[in-house]
């Protein structure tokens, strides 16, 4: 009797399954890597914008801090790739002589980055 040799259906399906797993895993890894790289890049841009704004906030006298605009004062061209985004500056009196200034940037669906500075009343001494 001539016996035909070849792959059975189970073997074929198993091979396809292995191939599918390899391709799917590779794709998932690449997609995740790209996503994280994009997130890290966005964070680098936002961090620079926050740090630049902090340079101004650090040097404003204690009393005028209350009159700070609730939007960023610095040039935000570096955040262009993140448009649309929103910025916010919030000043809170924690206790007498201590204020917190929280700067935040929101972009994308739900991404937000914040930087908080604590300012104390030095009694008029210039600590810029």
């Amino acid at each position, binding site marked *: 009797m001539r016996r035909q040799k070849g792959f059975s259906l189970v073997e074929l399906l198993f091979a396809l399954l292995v191939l599918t797993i390899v391709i799917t895993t590779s*794709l998932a890894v690449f997609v995740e890597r790209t996503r994280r790289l994009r997130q890290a890049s966005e964070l*680098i841009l936002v961090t620079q914008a926050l740090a630049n704004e902090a*340079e101004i906030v650090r040097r404003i006298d204690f009393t005028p801090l209350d009159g700070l605009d609730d939007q960023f004062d610095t040039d935000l*061209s570096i955040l262009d790739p993140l448009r649309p985004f929103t910025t916010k500056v919030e000043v809170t009196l924690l206790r007498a002589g201590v204020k917190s200034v929280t700067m935040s940037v929101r972009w994308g669906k739900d991404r937000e980055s914040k930087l908080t500075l604590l300012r104390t009343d030095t009694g008029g001494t210039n600590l810029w």
Partner: protein
Amino acid sequence: MNRERGFTLLETVFALAIFGILIFILTVMTAEMRGNDKRYPLNYMRHPQVSSVLSRMRRDVLDATQGPMYPVSAGPYTQTKETLIIYVMQPSGFAETVVWDFSVEGTATRKTFNVGAQVSEWTARGLPSKLTLDIFEIPDRPYGVRLLARDKAGQLAIDQIFQPRAH
């Protein structure tokens, strides 16, 4: 009984074809990934020389002191968008003039001068693109320095403000 052994030519070609397609897909994805890498500012900031320049320059501006703070010239250099001259207080208590020169594409050179004579030189090479300078003004405060750099796609990758501190 005639027992066949091994794969037929057709089977081998078929298996190689599938393997080839898989390799092709992975190669395309890797190439695309590398292309994406270059577009992100992260790639720019990852450059070790960029970090060195940023940290050293931040330190210099932070330590800038009146004398004047930004001298008009030092050695052969004058203040431009590509050259920054700062009068910097050293930890020793003595001050010296520091020149940052970004005029050569891909390099950043820091030179120090004392009484007109050059004392030291440090150069960062292989920077992804040219760095440029601007002034940053906060009312009633000394001028700050704004350092800018664009990546190869023309997108701002570095925009950092350095402000002198009180001494």
